[in-house]
């Protein structure tokens, strides 16, 4: 888990560097090697990694617009994910999705850039697992700013009444862009929302990856054993702005400092040291993580940009006749009459 934590953090730091290239001195969102918005997850690592450490490739994860740490923990191909973030042809989505919309069917990972809208598909993956009598589970990640969305609340209810093997993981970083948590909900403990649906709820008060791992183990175990859904809320922190370029003028400096001071990675390192892990071993893990990330970024940057003509492909897997210049690859229904 330590190596995944370090990988995820270093990945965000390196992406930040790459993203800012070409966007200075006046920040222009459409300039530089990484186009579009970029939402970094530094400070969220414990939630993604503590939870996903229990998951297999056949378990499904849906992530929100801040997905990198979760993708790394789920085992998404780092090189192809990075190529996607750089908008390259060999990216996970051939450069069509970008950083908020990463799809890796090999490990059943998907994203949505729309708040809370990964929750219903996660319930659907859980429904499929249940119908097929497999013990696969699904996990939907969302932020605390998303817990007022119908898509989440309806999924929680749906999963509850159908006893679906799904875990909803709320990453509570206290901020929904500029909105502090206390101004979007009067319920401090988000996991209590589960009570209203007779679903099991649990909150981990601090982003201690060990504590998250334990709580997630209970939740995922419950789901795998056919005992239904869980709402798991994890307190994390937001070390950076909502998106790159966010001036954060709305945020008290003390809050920013507190978020940066509480470092889940240092906390885990201390725990490991207490368990007798040596500095050499920690340094090796860090080195391995950094090499892996640097390799992925270097590889991604060498990849070609997509051919513009490819923009017209992939709208369908089975394009209707007349959509492309090619002959339809199937017989039209209805025959000659």
């Amino acid at each position: 888990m330590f190596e995944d934590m370090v990988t995820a953090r270093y990945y965000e730091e390196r992406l930040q560097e790459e993203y800012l290239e070409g966007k200075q001195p006046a920040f222009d969102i459409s300039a530089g090697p990484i186009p579009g918005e970029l939402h970094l997850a530094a400070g969220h690592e414990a939630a993604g990694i503590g939870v996903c450490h229990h998951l297999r490739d056949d378990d499904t994860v849906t992530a929100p617009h801040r997905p990198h740490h979760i993708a790394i923990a789920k085992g998404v191909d780092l090189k192809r994910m990075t190529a996607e973030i750089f908008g390259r042809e060999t990216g996970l989505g051939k450069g069509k999705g970008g950083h908020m919309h990463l799809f890796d069917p090999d490990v059943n990972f998907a994203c949505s850039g729309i708040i809370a809208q990964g929750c219903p598909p996660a319930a659907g993956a859980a429904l499929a697992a249940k119908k097929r009598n497999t013990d696969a589970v699904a996990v939907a990640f969302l932020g605390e700013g998303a817990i007022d969305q119908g898509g989440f609340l309806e999924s929680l209810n749906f999963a509850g009444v159908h006893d679906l093997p799904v875990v909803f993981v709320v990453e509570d970083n206290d901020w929904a862009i500029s909105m502090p948590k206390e101004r979007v909900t009067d319920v401090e403990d988000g996991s209590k929302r589960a009570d209203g649906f007779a679903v099991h709820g649990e909150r981990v008060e601090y982003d201690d990856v060990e504590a998250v791992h334990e709580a997630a183990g209970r939740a995922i175990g419950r789901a795998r054993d056919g005992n239904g859904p869980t709402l798991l809320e994890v307190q994390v922190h937001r070390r950076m702005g909502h998106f790159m370029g966010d001036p954060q003028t709305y945020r008290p400096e003390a809050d920013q400092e507190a978020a940066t001071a509480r470092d889940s990675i240092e906390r885990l390192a201390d725990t490991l040291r207490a368990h007798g892990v040596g500095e050499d071993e920690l340094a090796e893990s860090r080195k391995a993580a950094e090499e892996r990330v640097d390799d992925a970024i270097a590889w991604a940057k060498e990849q070609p940009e997509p051919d513009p003509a490819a923009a017209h492909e992939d709208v369908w897997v089975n394009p209707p006749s007349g959509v492309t210049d090619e002959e339809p690859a199937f017989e039209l229904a209805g025959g000659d009459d």
Partner: protein
Amino acid sequence: MATEGEERESEAGTVTRDLTMSRAMVEAIAHEMRANDEVFYMGEDVADYGGIFDSTQGLLDEFGHDRIMDVPISETAYLGAAVGAAQAGMRPIAELMFVDFFGVAMDQVYNQMAKNTYMSGGNVSVPMVLTAAVGGTYNDAAQHSQTLYGTFAHLPGMKVVVPSTAYDAKGLMHNAIRDDDPVVYMFHKRLMGIGWMPAPDGPKTPVPEEDYTIPFGKADVKREGSDVTVVTLGLHVHRALEAAGSLADDGVDAEVVDLRTLVPLDTETVVESVRKTGRLVVVDEDYRSFGVTGEVVARVADEALDSLDAVERVAAADVPIPYSRPLEDEVLPGTADIEAAVRDVAER
């Protein structure tokens, strides 16, 4: 750039300054809020942040959190609440941060906001404004880059406004807030004058300090020409003007008509222009099929088929907006695409 009628509507001798489109919008909103206690604004990140696209910059300082309301991320709740407050006689402005997010709350928009007046036999009015950012050109992919003009114009019951300049943005906003019907006010991110998304030169225009209204259903001829009529709106007004500038060097004189509102649509100005030029190019950043381009061409065909020598449509391809720069450039219409289409119809 405004037509004579509007100049008359704004008081003579008025002080004007060059404003960005967002400042002009905010000025109109602030004016209406001072004049009428029933006007308030709500949306995500509109108070302390000032709107992700600067749509409410500075309003919190004057009006406080009671009238510039940040809301939880609950579009169904707050857009629906705007409908309810409007039906109770208030004049809410509710902002949908990205138009792409409409899906999570579309029932409140198209089944409640848009239809309650009709279903009540005209006994209920919904005097609200729904503002939303539209547009791509900055590589934000399929869920944050759409320009859904056609969707809202297609569904009956909403007036649909799309300003392209600061002058128009202010006059149309005054009119939108004062209108007794629901108005969808769609602003293109790239026209707002945000620091992190450079705007073209055009949208920053002189704007009078006083209030003035621009009536709905009145297109504006942004450039007069005799050879080809280019009908467009939003960001693409500026691209069409740029294209017209370089075409003029080659002796093709294009007229650029800015629709400004889609509902109601000023068919008359468009048809008048086509009767003069005989050639029509319709440009839209929304998807090509079942949208603005088809509608405009159909209306011109209805009214002036005899005058129509050549027609072309320039619109977004019928694919979700892709992320990667070369792919997005391929899909969204650019200045060169407009230029090519105008040349093409001019030669026919």
